């Protein structure tokens, strides 16, 4: 009895379901084919638009706040990436500035015609040991640098000579170094002497015959070919003070060097002259 009742109920339900589905299908098909659905949609859009606008605005405002919180991690990551990129760009800028400087030095050297006189190699100063009167440059044995090669600036000012040579670096013994001494002469004269380094950027022109007239702040010292250490005609400095003594047969003059090591970045090694 109970089973029969259940079957009847089930059949009733099935009929209801089919009836509803058929009705819906008819409505849907009719509204689609007649274009009535567009009218319905239009009506709903019209009455809903003010509410939708305010919901949209509210959603926008709230989402801005929440996405700000949620995206902190992403933003942090982006910030890190930007920092890295910034560093990369900074290093590129530094490289460009270095290249510019190098270019300027080369232009200056070319302007003086140094490349016609000597075979040059451009080098950059790595470190300056000012108290020792020597500097370190970025060219070494692998670049073919040899001990004793003269080192000059782009303005043909003598700096010194190569001392210790390492595989990729070299030491430059400045002319103010105590180890340094070479033959020089006063420009436009036949007055010869020996330039000696005294350390601490002090250079003296020694062994100048007493009878020769030299002038402070006027005479320019250049290298001579006598010693064979440096090529002839490199600028050394100008006479600062002259000291004479009655017992000494020679006079001595302190020289102000033409280079300022603190302003130097690039220099040239003379490979052949």
């Amino acid at each position, binding site marked *: 009895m109970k089973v029969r009742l259940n079957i009847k109920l089930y059949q009733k*339900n099935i009929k*209801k*379901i089919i009836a*509803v*589905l058929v009705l*819906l*299908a008819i*409505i*849907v*098909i009719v*509204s*689609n084919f007649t274009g009535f*659905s567009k009218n*319905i*949609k239009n009506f*709903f859009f019209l009455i*809903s638009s003010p*509410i*939708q*606008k305010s*919901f*949209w605005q*509210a*959603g*926008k405002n*709230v*989402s801005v706040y*929440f996405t700000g919180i949620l995206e902190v991690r992403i933003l942090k990551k982006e910030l890190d990436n930007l920092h890295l990129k910034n560093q990369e760009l900074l290093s590129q800028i530094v490289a460009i500035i270095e290249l510019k400087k190098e270019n300027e030095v080369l232009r200056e050297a070319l302007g003086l015609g140094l490349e016609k006189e000597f075979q040059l190699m451009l080098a950059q100063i790595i470190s300056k040991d000012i108290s020792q009167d020597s500097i370190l440059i970025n060219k070494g044995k692998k670049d073919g640098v040899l001990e004793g090669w003269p080192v000059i600036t782009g303005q043909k000012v003598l700096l010194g000579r190569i001392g210790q040579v390492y595989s990729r670096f070299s030491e430059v013994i400045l002319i103010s170094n105590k180890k340094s001494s070479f033959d020089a002469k006063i420009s436009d004269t036949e007055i010869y002497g020996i330039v000696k380094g005294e350390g601490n950027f002090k250079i003296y022109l020694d062994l100048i015959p007493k009878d020769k007239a030299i002038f402070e702040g006027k005479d320019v010292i250049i290298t001579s070919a006598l010693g064979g250490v440096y090529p002839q005609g490199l600028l050394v400095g100008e006479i600062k003070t002259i000291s004479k003594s009655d017992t000494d047969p020679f006079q001595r003059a302190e020289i102000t060097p033409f280079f300022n090591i603190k302003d130097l970045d690039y220099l040239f090694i003379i490979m052949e002259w």
Partner: protein
Amino acid sequence: MVKKIIFFILIFYILTLIQTSFLVHFNVAGVIPNLVLITVIFINLFSSSWLQKISSAVIGGFYLDIFSLNNMGGFFGFYTLILTGFSFFLKIILERYVRIPIIRQI
């Protein structure tokens, strides 16, 4: 019963508006929570009245059709049919195969 249907008409209307205008801004990986669908499922699971179940599905589907612009190439009635069919399917499943005392009590 009429009151219940009017209530559904109102509540589904508000839910659809929230879904289409407010929750759009909170999509997670391009997915927006379908409030209407969730509510229809909820009513179909826990309501005891067959008319309530079917009316919620029809009303919910109707609103989704209205406010959906690209459902099946603009086929109006897509969601209504889907949700109504889903409601019937759930009804059959629950009546024949599920025996949960809590659901029956509600």
